[in-house]
């Protein structure tokens, strides 16, 4: 339809529609969202986390030359300067040109948290069973400012939640060692940013971001879409109006 369609579509869909309408303006790097009145403290804390979590690996990963996957199609020419038309990159087999940056231990810790957020049930597997930690690793390893911010928040947050576990349940105890009940005791305090106490707010922002990325990682898989009974993206011979059961659900006469 139109070239600006993705702006409207993003707002219309469930994607990002609640807190983060994706517009061209917000695609620019924005400040980390800071909630509450004492943001200077948390800013400082973030800075400390950034220093603690930053590694040379995060900055040194070298993407391959842009356009390396673009083939040139020769065209018949009479002008020796003519060079044909560029082809699109292969989106069926996309190339991820950066290296993953999370350690095996961080991935193990992340897998536990991902499954606290999306556990297996009778309809679908857990988030880690469909590769959520690897998805998050790819995301936070990307050499773009927003991704790097997420990398700092998540790596720092994994340290935070282990330290919180030790404070509550004994020296050396990590989040992954806790019982489900104990894990929920911590998560209940950080699962909603506006309700989090000041001392937990950093943890709450970390949890919110992991939930955001875990949700994307899980529901965009075949297993996630099947759970939701997503039935689109198929060739249609004709376009049908909503079926009668949908109209009935909406209180409309079929």
């Amino acid at each position, binding site marked *: 339809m139109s070239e*600006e369609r993705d702006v409207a579509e993003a707002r*219309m869909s469930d994607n990002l529609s609640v807190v983060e309408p994706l517009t061209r303006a917000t695609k620019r790097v924005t400040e980390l969202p800071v909630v509450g009145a004492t943001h200077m403290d948390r800013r400082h804390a973030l800075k400390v986390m950034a220093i603690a979590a930053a590694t040379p690996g995060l900055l040194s990963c070298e993407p391959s030359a842009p356009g390396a996957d673009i083939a040139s199609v020769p065209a018949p020419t009479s002008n020796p300067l003519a060079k044909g038309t560029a082809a699109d990159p292969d989106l069926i087999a996309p190339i991820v040109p950066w290296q993953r940056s999370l350690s095996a231990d961080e991935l193990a810790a992340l897998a536990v948290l991902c499954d606290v957020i999306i556990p297996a049930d009778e309809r679908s597997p857990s988030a880690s069973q469909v590769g959520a930690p690897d998805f998050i690793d790819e995301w936070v390893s990307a050499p773009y400012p927003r991704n790097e911010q997420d990398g700092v928040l998540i790596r720092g947050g994994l340290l935070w939640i282990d330290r919180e576990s030790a404070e509550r349940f004994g020296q050396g105890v990590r989040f992954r060692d806790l019982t489900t009940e104990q894990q929920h005791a911590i998560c209940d305090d950080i699962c909603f940013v506006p309700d989090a106490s000041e001392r937990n707010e950093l943890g709450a922002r970390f949890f919110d971001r992991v939930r955001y990325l875990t949700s994307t990682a899980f529901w965009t898989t075949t297993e996630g879409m099947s759970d939701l009974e997503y039935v689109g993206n198929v060739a249609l011979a004709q376009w049908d109006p909503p079926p009668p059961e*949908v109209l009935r659900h909406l209180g409309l006469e079929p």
Partner: protein
Amino acid sequence: MLLPPALATGNLDIITDAMVREVTVNAQGRATGVHYIDRTTRLDEHVSARVVIVAASALESARILLNSKSGLFPDGIGNGSGLVGKYIMDTVGAGVGGQIPALENTPAHNTDGASATHMYVPWWLYQEQARGGLDFARGYHIEFGGGRRMPGFGFMGGLAPFTEGSYGAQFKEDCRRYYGSFMGFDGRGEMIPNDDCYCEIDPAGVDQWGIPTLEFHWKWSEHELNQARHMQHTFAGIIDAMGGTVTGTVHEDGARAIAAPGQIIHEVGGVIMGADPRRSVLNQYCQSWEVENLFVPDGGCFVSNADKNPTLSIMAIAWRASDYIVQQLASRSLG
């Protein structure tokens, strides 16, 4: 889409990776070709032509013309009117999203194609406007939709305000419940060109190809700002009438409601057409008033910018200009 058949004629060569710097002219004031920088070799190249057609999209076309300075055209080729770069426009945009409880737990069904391709609200307040009931001129249409779409990046990532931050089994249940219950409304409206929206060569700016860049000046009029505010309040009213909750902010200040200039990427104007050489750059065939073998058949020629997307109009205008060029070449009036 149009290039393969054009290539098949054997009369078309395409030179890619070419950043055009300027249109060249001879002593008689006719366009002779273009200089460009080869992006791969970084060398300056020249191609000569009987007719030069600049269709680099509105603002870049204005930039090329302004950068084509010569003794005959000290302010840029074809810019005797001083209007190249003036009266640039974008589309007025504003939107609001909402969550609609009635749409929760909707039975599974395929909603592909149920938004923009099958639902559309054209401007509907002509009569109220004619009665003086609105604080802006011109109108807008509504693009809206929602539905059980394919989950993409960010899916349900913003659910926390509705669920007080649920996680675990409850989060999974909430995602199933809320799936397909969000709707979005976006307005796309007409901007009226004004004296304060223009671009010019930035005396201090140059890109990596050594080509001077543009500096932009922009000021919405009250018409656009009031229209954007009207959009947001209208959409919030629709969501409210559906029993839903607005998920964004509805602004009283139109300057906060309106999308940033350039954000809707419908840049047009800057090389405007008209009937009077003193008040326009091009004639009705996108032909320069001053350089008869120079044409600019892209969005630059627009003197107004209706609420609809400009692409199809650009194609129609380019088609008409092309027919004219072919006819003029055939009758030896050109080239």
